[in-house]
């Protein structure tokens, strides 16, 4: 989230699209109801299903699963055509005026630079033109045909309301009603917030859908303001934290990235990451990359990390490609992996294509599962009726199942979707012999370290030299670890303006990332968390909920990254002179000397607005990008592509047999391409989702939740039910090219057939949540049906739009 949950109450319009906040985030959704009740806000819900969120909406617009870019592109076209944009904002805070290179092109759905053999783009043409001063060329008059504004306008001029209706099946009148409501928030004193979740992410075009939403918000000037923003709801309690902490194939902590194998030395690694400004007097905060990196390496390898060894640069593994989940299971399936550790994760259920998952896991030599609950993954080898039809005697994998504590049995911090780090306290001992994840990881590490110390082995250095400064090495405490990632001074830290002045004494906790140094004098495990545990103590544990401004900025409640900032890009809530666009919802302002207000300024605190520094300090341009440059794998502007399993077989943007149908850069392996179904055999569009009564695959172990929603079902509309001769409560069989499940049919008015380019398309709702373990009635894992296709940028599987056939069981 750029903003945070309570801030939603400041919105004048709420767009819930690609999410179902009322159902999946009910307690956060309450702030939408607050906005409706106290600001007369309106709520628009765009969803293939009439969800619980839709039930609360002032306007519900149905949409075909996977066509959100067409919809959002249509809205952008409406705004540009009707000039309903926030002019001051886009002119000064975005790349509207920047001129794009002449060799950038877009033809029939493909951007310049595509290599069809590799399914990849060469992105070099997706860039701005540079002037002789090295800075980006701009045309403030917006007349240049290749300025971003004109390219954008041209790109989305194709997305007419008629086309939107044709692709999305959204009735034109409803679509235009939505456009009108949205357009009204281009006023500087009116804000729309967008709330989205995996309904946008889990598509082969997921990242671009989200980008389209962000672009829409930029056009309206709704980023950085109270009641605005792009708000990812996030589905797991600490998935924000674990991503912040970089627990992904290609990341280090704080969104630092691992080196690619071509980057053989530190300088080669650092230069492209510590980008210099692309426009005059811009902050380009990533210029400080080196400080973050060095402080991290000092936290991990302590005294072993020195300037001479480039702070243990060689200790870091180097990437040849990204080893995301889909890639890993592909390798596993081809026998290239031997071991796997699943920590509190149930991939057999959570990853697409269960049959492939089971086959892949069966090729492992060993699997270690750490979990508080008995997961399906830990028992992928075990036969459970028709729900897991495997033969244990043919599966060689050794499996370890290690019991862990749950939330109630440990201290620590979790990061909410509003980026708040909140400390929690242990209330009881774990049951039986269960242990915390920290203890287990420490024990495994110490075993390995001792083995490497005793026996040697492959490159033992990073293991034996890992800093392990914990009072009881087998039991690092949450407090010790939190202090470590927050960071401390290893030597006295000096004031850059006055090198004789010590601003932080050796051994003290740092107050924030401004105190980080790249000379080895600071240690910080995660730069964006720097200051969470300062000399003032554990700020994540703060519980002062006072809200003096009345706009929900409880600054002394817990701690938000970065720097306890509650609304990201809040400099953009003020005009070029530093005055708030909407004084009633002032976050910060310029008082002539400094920036201040009810939020921590996302800006240089003493930077005079007259200097022209842009509000988007993390980009080298200092402004937000409509034109993504090389930031995306699949194009600088979002473009509608059909889901990999399309009910049409063509892209209505171009017509039958023409143009690019699917995302040309999406993640798909050859075998999985063969496992894609066609509309003739699998005519119905399925989408998977959560129900409000359940949480993922956990709550089927929870008795009350099992009582509230005991049995697996699928949702179909009345028309489809009639067509296949099914009534509510009957059993149906749902099959895809990859497998089939049986479930009870919930027949509902809430799912209506859509007319897509003249043909009727039925949507089928497949809730996840059931499986072969738990106290709820046993069911099929919903991923039996889903395709092994991933987004081009994040490799997120396409769970939200695929083809099935529903029949009477």
């Amino acid at each position, binding site marked *: 989230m750029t903003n945070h949950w309570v801030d939603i109450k400041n919105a004048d319009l709420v767009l819930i699209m690609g999410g179902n906040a009322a159902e999946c985030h009910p307690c*956060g959704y309450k702030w939408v109801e607050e906005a409706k009740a106290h600001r007369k806000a309106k709520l628009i819900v765009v969803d293939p299903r009439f969800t619980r969120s839709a039930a609360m909406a002032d306007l519900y617009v149905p949409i075909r699963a996977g066509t959100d870019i067409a919809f959002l592109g249509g809205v952008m076209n409406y705004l540009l055509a009707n000039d309903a944009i926030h002019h001051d904002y886009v002119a000064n805070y975005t790349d509207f005026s920047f001129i794009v290179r002449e060799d950038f092109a877009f033809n029939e759905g493909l951007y310049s630079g595509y290599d069809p053999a590799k399914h990849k783009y060469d992105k070099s043409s997706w860039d701005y033109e540079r002037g002789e001063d090295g800075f980006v060329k701009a045309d403030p008059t917006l007349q240049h045909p290749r300025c971003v504004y004109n390219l954008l306008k041209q790109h989305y001029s194709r997305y007419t309301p008629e086309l939107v209706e044709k692709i999305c099946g959204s009735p034109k009148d409803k679509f235009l009603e939505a456009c009108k409501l949205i357009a009204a928030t281009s006023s500087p004193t009116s804000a729309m917030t967008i709330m989205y979740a995996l309904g946008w992410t889990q598509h082969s075009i997921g990242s671009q859908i989200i980008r389209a939403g962000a672009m829409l918000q930029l056009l309206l000037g709704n980023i950085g303001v109270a009641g605005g923003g792009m708000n990812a709801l996030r589905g797991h309690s600490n998935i924000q934290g674990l991503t912040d902490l970089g627990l*992904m194939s290609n990341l280090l902590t704080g969104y630092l990235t691992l080196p690619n194998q071509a980057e053989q030395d530190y300088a080669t690694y650092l230069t492209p990451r510590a980008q210099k400004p692309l426009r005059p007097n811009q902050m380009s905060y990533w210029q400080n990359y080196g400080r973050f990196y060095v402080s991290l390496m000092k936290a991990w390898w302590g005294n072993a990390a020195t300037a001479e060894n480039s702070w243990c640069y060689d200790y870091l593994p180097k990437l040849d490609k990204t080893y995301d989940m889909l890639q890993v299971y592909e390798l596993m399936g081809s026998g290239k992996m031997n071991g796997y550790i699943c920590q509190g994760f149930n991939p057999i259920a959570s*990853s697409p294509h269960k049959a492939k998952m089971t086959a892949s896991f069966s090729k492992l030599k060993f699997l270690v599962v750490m979990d508080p609950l008995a997961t399906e993954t830990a028992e992928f080898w075990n036969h459970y009726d028709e729900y897991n039809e495997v033969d244990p005697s043919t599966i060689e994998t050794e499996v370890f199942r290690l019991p862990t504590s749950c939330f109630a049995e440990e201290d620590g911090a979790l990061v*909410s979707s509003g980026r708040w780090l909140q400390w929690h306290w242990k209330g009881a001992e774990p049951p039986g012999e269960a242990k915390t994840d920290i203890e287990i990881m420490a024990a495994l590490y110490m075993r390995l370290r001792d083995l490497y110390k005793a026996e040697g082995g492959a490159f033992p250095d990073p293991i034996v030299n*890992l800093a392990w400064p914990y009072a009881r090495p087998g039991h690092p405490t949450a407090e010790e670890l939190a202090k470590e990632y927050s960071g401390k001074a290893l030597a006295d830290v000096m004031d850059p303006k006055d090198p004789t002045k010590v601003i932080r004494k050796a051994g003290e906790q740092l107050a924030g990332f401004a105190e980080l140094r790249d000379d080895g004098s600071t240690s910080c495990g995660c730069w964006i968390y720097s200051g969470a545990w300062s000399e003032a103590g554990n700020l994540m544990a703060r519980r002062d909920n006072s809200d003096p401004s009345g706009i929900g900025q409880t600054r002394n409640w817990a701690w938000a990254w970065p720097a306890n900032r509650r609304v990201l890009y809040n400099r953009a809530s003020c005009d070029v002179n530093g005055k708030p666009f909407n004084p009633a919802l002032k976050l910060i302002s310029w008082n002539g000397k400094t920036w201040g207000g009810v939020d921590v300024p996302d800006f240089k605190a003493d930077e005079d607005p007259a200097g022209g520094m842009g509000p988007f300090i993390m980009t080298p341009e200092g402004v937000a990008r409509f034109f993504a440059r090389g930031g995306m794998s699949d194009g600088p502007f979002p473009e509608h592509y059909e889901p990999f399993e399309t009910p049409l077989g063509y892209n209505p943007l171009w017509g039958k047999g023409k143009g690019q149908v699917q995302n040309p850069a999406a993640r798909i392996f050859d075998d999985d391409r063969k496992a894609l179904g066609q509309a003739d055999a699998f005519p119905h569009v399925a989408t998977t989702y959560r129900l409000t009564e359940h949480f993922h695959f*956990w709550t089927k*172990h929870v008795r009350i939740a099992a009582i509230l929603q005991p049995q697996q079902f699928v949702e179909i509309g009345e028309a489809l039910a009639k067509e296949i001769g099914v009534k509510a409560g009957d059993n149906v069989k749902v099959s895809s090219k990859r497998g089939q499940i049986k479930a009870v049919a919930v027949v509902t008015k809430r799912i209506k057939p859509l007319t897509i380019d003249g043909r009727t398309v039925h949507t089928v709702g497949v809730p996840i949540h059931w499986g072969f373990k738990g106290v709820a009635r046993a069911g099929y894992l919903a991923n039996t049906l889903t395709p092994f296709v991933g987004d081009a940028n994040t490799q997120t599987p396409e769970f939200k739009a695929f083809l099935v056939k529903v029949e009477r069981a």
Partner: protein
Amino acid sequence: MVEVTRREFLKVTGMTLAGSSVAMLGFAPETAIAEVRQFKLARATETRNTCPYCSVACGILMYGLGDGAKNAKSSIFHIEGDPDHPVNRGTLCPKGASLIDFIHSEGRLLYPEYRAPRSDKWQRISWEEAYDKIARLLKKDRDANFVAKTADGLTVNRWLTTGVLAASASSNEAGYITHKVVRSLGILAFDNQARV
């Protein structure tokens, strides 16, 4: 004979009378005084925590047995929303409101278990045995498959044959130490649940 039957008759018909006199003597069942159920949290220990499900991150209050005295062994018996929390203000969704059944789920794992190749059952093992076996398997695989340099001489120091999937609900601290350990081993096949 008639005398007897008469007495019997009297007995039967007199039962109602007898009943009434018994009642008058005070043998009627006490009509319990109508009071509300006792408030069950009176002196329970309150611990503040965060709901482990979605990222709204609602504050919760956990009520545990005992007052924290050394001899009192806590067990959480009730959970409700934290009214001080700025986001949820005491509310909880159906999942949060049923957290107590997660803590005490019959699906909770209690001790380390091991499944041997081709076996169809779990066997209980000790933590020591589990750690030893796992560490040995990890080292064996790493030593056998660690790539220090590629064929074309690039230093890569990576280990690709073992992967780690990190949690989505473990604390920052657990995540941080997991990352630290995993990268020190050179693992790249590393992911979390951000996408699913």
